[in-house]
């Protein structure tokens, strides 16, 4: 049995999406920039997709710019706005829990004379309006705050945040890769100037994403070349992928509530039933302001990589923010930002659901997971210590574990 619970990194392609893509790989291969009929078929298909994506987020067609992925959209937003506004100021505000394509784009700018402020989050991963207000300055040109977090699923109150930002006439971008196509995203309501979305998060293909740029917002392209995408993003269009993105957007819109009802039911089964089967489990993220498909637990006394390797052996695909599971051997920046105790963060496990998951898969997970935890705990000196003394051993050297932490259960 294959149980795919890593949908924050990529969703399975919807077959209806695949079907509309096929002709654009095969017979409709004309370049959309040419004016003979074969080319106009591609052009029309792109226009249609633009309209489908625009509808998904309540934007105008001409405000949608296709890119290759969420990272590209975020880079275009951050760097493009920074460049277009450098006369006005060089101060940019981002949150501490942004995706790396925002954080690293900002870091790059900081090497070129820009100043970046990072807004902290509380232990649930939420951003406070006060902190946003405090961060704004005369020379702030851009604020970028994600709609929902990839890892712990916390949804930010973008509507409120944008009010504060727009009052000061500052450009506001939100990375909605985790929300567009999953929960309602309306650029008018959210009142944002730029918004990133990616089709591979809602059953579309990899290789197609979009950036919403509100009419009238100046931006400097990051890929120079031809006139594609209104000159704001040059390069031959990936027509099959764009067509797929459009179809995925259309399907997502019409099936959003059915999907999210289903996904929430499955998610709540994990949220409720796993802690009944496994002791010393802590939920990361916000209990209510949370993405429908996100479950992020820290399972104490064991380490995330061991957990996901054993789960993988059982055909269950998950993810972890533990230090050992990351290439950098650091606990994820998100767990660090919510002040997660490193000893506990080591046991973090991220399970993200999609419309393709089923109750029987959750049954399987709930059956296979507890023995894995037991096996790892039986091996764990930290658990051993806890069982013998009732106390928690401090994490090993190299962590930031400084004081006794008490954990609510």
């Amino acid at each position, binding site marked *: 049995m294959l149980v795919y619970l890593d949908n924050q990194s990529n969703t399975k392609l919807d077959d209806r999406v695949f079907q509309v893509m096929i002709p654009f790989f095969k017979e409709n291969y004309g370049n959309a920039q040419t004016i003979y009929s074969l080319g106009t078929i591609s052009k029309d298909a792109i226009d249609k997709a633009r309209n489908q994506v625009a509808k998904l987020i309540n934007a105008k067609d001409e405000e949608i710019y296709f890119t290759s992925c969420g990272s590209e959209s975020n880079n275009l937003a951050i760097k493009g706005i920074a460049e277009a506004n450098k006369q006005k100021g060089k101060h940019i505000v981002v949150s501490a829990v942004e995706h790396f394509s925002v954080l690293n784009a900002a870091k790059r700018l900081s090497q070129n004379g820009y100043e970046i402020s990072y807004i902290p989050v509380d232990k649930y991963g939420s951003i406070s309006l006060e902190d946003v207000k405090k961060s704004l300055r005369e020379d702030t040109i851009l604020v970028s705050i994600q709609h929902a977090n990839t890892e712990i699923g916390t949804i930010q109150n973008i509507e409120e945040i944008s009010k504060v930002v727009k009052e000061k006439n500052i450009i506001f971008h939100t990375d909605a890769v985790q929300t567009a196509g999953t929960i309602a995203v309306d650029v008018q309501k959210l009142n944002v100037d730029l918004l990133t979305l990616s089709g591979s998060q809602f059953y579309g293909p990899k290789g197609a994403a979009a950036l919403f740029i509100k009419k009238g917002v100046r931006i400097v392209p990051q890929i120079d070349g031809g006139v594609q995408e209104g000159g704001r993003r040059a390069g031959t269009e990936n027509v099959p992928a764009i067509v797929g993105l459009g179809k995925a957007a259309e399907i997502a819109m019409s099936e959003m509530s059915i999907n999210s009802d289903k996904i929430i039911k499955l998610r709540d089964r994990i949220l409720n039933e796993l802690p009944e089967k496994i002791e010393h489990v802590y939920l990361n993220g916000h209990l209510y302001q949370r993405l429908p498909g996100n479950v992020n637990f820290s399972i104490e*006394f*064991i*380490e995330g*990589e*061991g957990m996901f*390797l*054993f789960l*993988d*052996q059982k055909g269950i695909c998950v993810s972890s923010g533990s*230090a*050992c*599971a990351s*290439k950098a*051997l*650091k606990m994820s920046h998100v767990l660090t930002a919510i002040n997660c105790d*490193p*000893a506990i963060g*080591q046991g973090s496990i991220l399970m993200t659901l999609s419309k393709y998951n089923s109750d029987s898969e959750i049954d399987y997970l709930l059956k296979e997971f507890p023995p894995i935890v037991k096996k790892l705990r*039986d*091996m*764990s*000196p*930290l*658990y*051993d210590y806890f069982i013998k003394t009732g106390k928690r*051993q401090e*994490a*090993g*050297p*190299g*962590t930031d*574990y400084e004081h006794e932490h008490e954990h609510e259960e």
Partner: protein
Amino acid sequence: MAFYSEKVMEHFQNPRNVGEIKDADGIGTVGNPVCGDLMTFYIKVKDNKLEDVKFKTFGCGAAIAVSSMVSEMAKGKTIEEALKITNASVAQELGGLPPNKMHCSNLGADALHKAIEDYLNKKK
């Protein structure tokens, strides 16, 4: 699974000598300065030989495989021989480790050596 060698995966999935020796002659614990993980080795010594070796590990897949391999390599060896087990030889026995996981192999031999040290100190 291409990330770890087959041998690493095999040891990770079926680690040998997991556990604790109640009346151990030597105990050694080391923490991993890189990622914060922990490994404890227990040894039982008879006639200058490691009659029994057991371990407990809180760490990644590589750390568990390394512990298992060290315990196998050390069991039955004399103190002198066991002290010659190096981090490199453990990694080699495992068919190599991914570069960013090489440090995990440092824990195994170190923890074993610490347990031997503990035994030698107690004997004094």
